[in-house]
């Protein structure tokens, strides 16, 4: 984390399933150290796009590069909609999963510190089943942060939570992810406006990108911030206009 994080450059990316074009000629950039929120209706290919960037899927054509031209592989942490905590392992072990899987030495102090940062101090030895959905997602956030990757990809990580829990974990995420290059997929305009430096809408079939919108001010922005409300309204209109009947 001493070197500045790279941006992500997506160039002429295309994805096809069978004969169907999911998207093609996709071009955008996640600026270094910023959070870009990608919005769009479900089924538009947002998750596939994220998986391609994460190296979990291959595109039909096009490229994903880091702006410092070093490979992106190994510098990306991934957070999904489900918490993906291993049910047989306690929170501490779950947070350190990456180290276990890479046969690295585990840093228990750092894992415990991360757990306390996400408000789970004292629950280090608890099993995931003993926690609420919000607590589990916070543990997943701690696990993502433990990876110390400069780039973080998030696929609707908070969508399964109730609105108050979601607002709290959004604040936490904005605070703890500051300085990293983050691509956040969401279908919640409010979430995008509160957390994103930049907003981008993906919609249609084949999917196209709208114009990138820059939101000023530091995230997390308050839910009643006039700027947030204004941008959210505009976003909703855009999404509605682009959505099929």
């Amino acid at each position: 984390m001493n070197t500045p994080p790279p941006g992500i450059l997506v160039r002429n990316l295309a994805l096809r399933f069978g004969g169907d074009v999911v998207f093609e000629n996709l071009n955008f950039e996640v600026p270094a150290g910023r959070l870009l929120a990608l919005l769009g209706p479900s089924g538009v290919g947002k998750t596939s796009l994220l998986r391609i960037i994460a190296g979990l899927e291959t595109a039909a054509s096009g490229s994903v590069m880091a702006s410092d031209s070093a490979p992106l592989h190994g510098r990306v942490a991934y957070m999904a909609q489900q918490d993906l905590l291993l049910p047989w392992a306690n929170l501490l072990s779950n947070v350190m999963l990456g180290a276990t899987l890479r046969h690295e030495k585990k840093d228990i102090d750092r894992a415990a510190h991360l757990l306390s940062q996400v408000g789970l101090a004292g629950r280090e030895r608890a099993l995931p089943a003993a926690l609420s959905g919000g607590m589990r997602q916070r543990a997943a956030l701690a696990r993502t942060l433990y990876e110390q990757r400069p780039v973080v990809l998030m696929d609707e990580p908070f969508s399964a939570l109730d609105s108050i829990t979601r607002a709290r974990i959004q604040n936490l995420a904005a605070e703890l992810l500051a300085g990293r290059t983050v691509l956040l997929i969401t279908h919640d305009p409010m979430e995008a406006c509160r957390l994103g430096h930049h907003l981008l809408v993906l919609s249609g079939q084949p999917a196209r990108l709208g114009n990138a919108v820059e939101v000023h001010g530091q995230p997390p922005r308050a839910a009643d911030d006039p700027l947030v409300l204004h941008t959210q309204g505009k976003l909703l209109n855009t999404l509605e206009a682009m959505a099929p009947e």
Partner: protein
Amino acid sequence: MRFFRPLVSILVFLAAWWGITRFTAIPGFMLPPPQSVAIALWAQRGTLFYNSLTTLSEILLGLLFGTLLGAVSAVAIVASPALQRWLMPILVLSQAIPVFALAPLLVLWLGFGIASKVVMAVLVIFFPVTANFADGLRRTDPAWLDLARTMNADGFAVMRHVRLPAAMPALASGLRVATAMAPIGAIIGEWVGASSGLGFVMINANARIQTSLMFAALVILAVLAVGLYKLVDVALRRALYWVPDSLTDETKTP
């Protein structure tokens, strides 16, 4: 309540049994009344105890080796597609031939001792273990595997830390089936040729028309089988502490 209902069932069963022997003309060598079985149980307790030990060790050794063999084959099958192509036909063939048909051959090769029965039990057991465990190993949540990939995990680490623990409930199902089936292998082996064991007692008693003794051996076999199953079941529940169990929760919810 936990012991009450089974107790009532057993008492009703015993009463019906007694009623049939008391009020019908079925001769005692066909169906002995429960009390003569009880008398046989007590009178022959030394023989029965000694022979139970033989059968129990056959079952336990069969379970141990059958589970080991089954688990190893499952991991091998899942870890290597090439091995799967080579092993699968053998596994299926081994199950297509009834163990009953193999029993005389095994006794011929391995003798009247305990070895032929243990092998028989292993043959009965390992397939359900392999099938269940391999299934569990294949069904790891793909999202976990994706997460492991973004963490740069190698195949060994994923197997050791994600696939294996995630498949433990499936292995447990296989083990439960295996535990229920293990006595079959042991008893068949003893019927075909043995110098001790409950199956051996039953064959001898049958030849001498000591039907009460046959029933006594049967009772002990049933108690052994049920007891072993319960023991394994409880141990597995303890070991799989993270698996939600909807059946044991019935006491918590009204």
